[in-house]
């Protein structure tokens, strides 16, 4: 299992479009992917879940990956956050 902490960089936060990009990216990997914020646990492959996080710019999230391709999943997803979802 791998854990990573990320900060939301893009100005409008995890609104519908970035949420969709995140979910689509996560779906490419076999590993489970969960997001933790303010005591909420959300499946990172679920669009309704990610939207519910209402994560704004500056919010810190804990990401947890576990499965056969967890290394690569973590790397790809963290990069996506760091690029501000290419917004």
């Amino acid at each position, binding site marked *: 299992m791998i854990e990573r902490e990320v900060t939301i960089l*893009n*100005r*409008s*936060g995890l*609104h*519908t479009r970035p949420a*969709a990009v995140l*979910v689509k990216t996560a779906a490419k990997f076999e590993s489970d992917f969960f997001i933790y914020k303010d005591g*909420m646990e959300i*499946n990172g*492959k*679920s*669009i*309704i*879940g990610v*939207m*519910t996080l*209402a994560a*704004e710019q500056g919010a810190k999230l804990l990401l947890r990956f576990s499965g056969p391709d967890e290394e690569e999943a973590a790397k790809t997803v963290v990069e996506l956050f760091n690029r501000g979802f290419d*917004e």
Partner: protein
Amino acid sequence: MTDSTITKKEIILKGIPASPGIAIGPVYLFVKDIPVVEQRSIDEKEIEIEKLRLQSAIDKSKKELHKITLFAQEKIGDAKAKILEAQMMVLEDEILLGAIRGRIEKEKKNAEFIVSDEIGKYAAIMLKAHDEYMHERAHDMEDLKHRIIRNMMHERLVSKLEGSIIIVAHTLTPADTMILSRNHVLGYATDLGGITSHAALFSRSLKIPAVVGLGDVSRSATSGDTIILDGYTGNVIINPVPEHIHEYEKKRARMLQFEEKLANLRNLPAETKDGHRIELSANIELTDELEYVVVQGSEGVGLYRTESLLLDRDDFPTEEEQYNEYKKIVERVYPNRVIMRTFDIGGDKVAPEMAEEANPFLGWRGIRVGLDRPELLLNQLRAMLRASTKKNLCIMFPMVTNVEEVKKAKAYIRTAKADLRARGIKFNERIPVGVMIEVPAAALMVDKISKEADFLSIGSNDLTQYMLAVDRGNPLVAKLYNEFDPSILITLKHVIDGGHKYGKWVGICGEMAGYPLATPLLVGLGMDELSVVPAILPQIKKIVRSLNYSEMQTLASNALECETSKDVALLVRKFFKKHLPDIPIEIE
């Protein structure tokens, strides 16, 4: 006594006229049925049946949403159709659907109940966020939940109705308006909404009369009641007495006839009988309105509110996105002029985390935001400059208070030009730059501002509010708001003279520009341009073309001598009775 002899009481309501025209017909009360979900235990054998029911409801919902989206794209364009996208993505959320199926198996409950509970949980969390955007998403999720459940119960939302109807509703979502418009709708009346609400924009583009912001029309009317809807004044009458029906039928005929005559004016200039010409242009918010503007015989766009680009999104459009939108407008309106106002937004759009301002009208707005967030302003200026190669685009700055701000804003235009030159992109080197006069300080200092600006445009709504210290949204003082107050007329005169002294033209783009009663006054005061809502444009042109400039000048100079707004109104009414007996507008 039979039922038919019982007459229902007439109810008169006043709302905001959102789309012109008069409609008389039967009410269809549009209430969204919220399905009642029962909790039912199922046995082992029923699990598979419930899962199948779930799947077929999901498939059906997807098909419905897909249809609505296509319909929306066709009618209102891609950007607005995106509102429906979030719902579609959730229907394809395999994690969510897997969780629902898992719960059906484990809890052995009917599918409706599990769907309602599971999606409802997320919607409830979204509602807790202190954020308008999340609240809208929560409503989206509730809407979706009801759609799935309705489909599971084999219920359908009534969307095919018999005959011609007037839709009465509490509020209408974009999806509702789309679906309902497949019927023969004579008009729309809603409790909520302003002139920029979805129902209003939509009805204007389809030329269906609409009145919004009625407060409680949906509780006062029931399906089948007769209703009169006046999209010119905002008057709505439920169960009208025969005299009222007769009166409005006459008004409708009169207006239709008048509007037909007006159509002949389309290609004629706004010129007085004695040869004084003014420019009559239109205010627009959406590019969708352009066709209507052209049809109405406008000479150009006197105010394009770029804030509309920010609707339904929570970030700012890129330079490229803005450029594409601006280019569409200048090309459609060419060779006529388009005046584009930089974002006139409150601080909350830029920094939502900012504490709410106690006095937003006196707060961080318009050019103040632009000057404090130069990256936003520069982005927009570059996009406008890039769209200016046909030389028919002018830039205008909102909410200017002093000449210092004009100088700073012009310096940013120079920076934007230098950026484009470095990138080798062409633009109009001599792009005209105008200033909106809506703050009394700017009106008083018009001489200094005129030296820096190429033109001035008076924002009469805010100017009147600031001059009279009246918030017209506050019902306790709204009646004190009056553009015919002599102090306003004197200010207009001061601004016009100040602009003319330096050879700059002066226009007006507030609501006052579109009041037929104010037209002779404004032209008489020396206004060079009137920019009005497209719906009213032909009427204003008719008035200008029916009068002599000299008559209007006399009227204006008499009005400037008046003591009260009542005296001004009296003067104007007399003028209309004498010079314009054929114009069918309500003078009382």
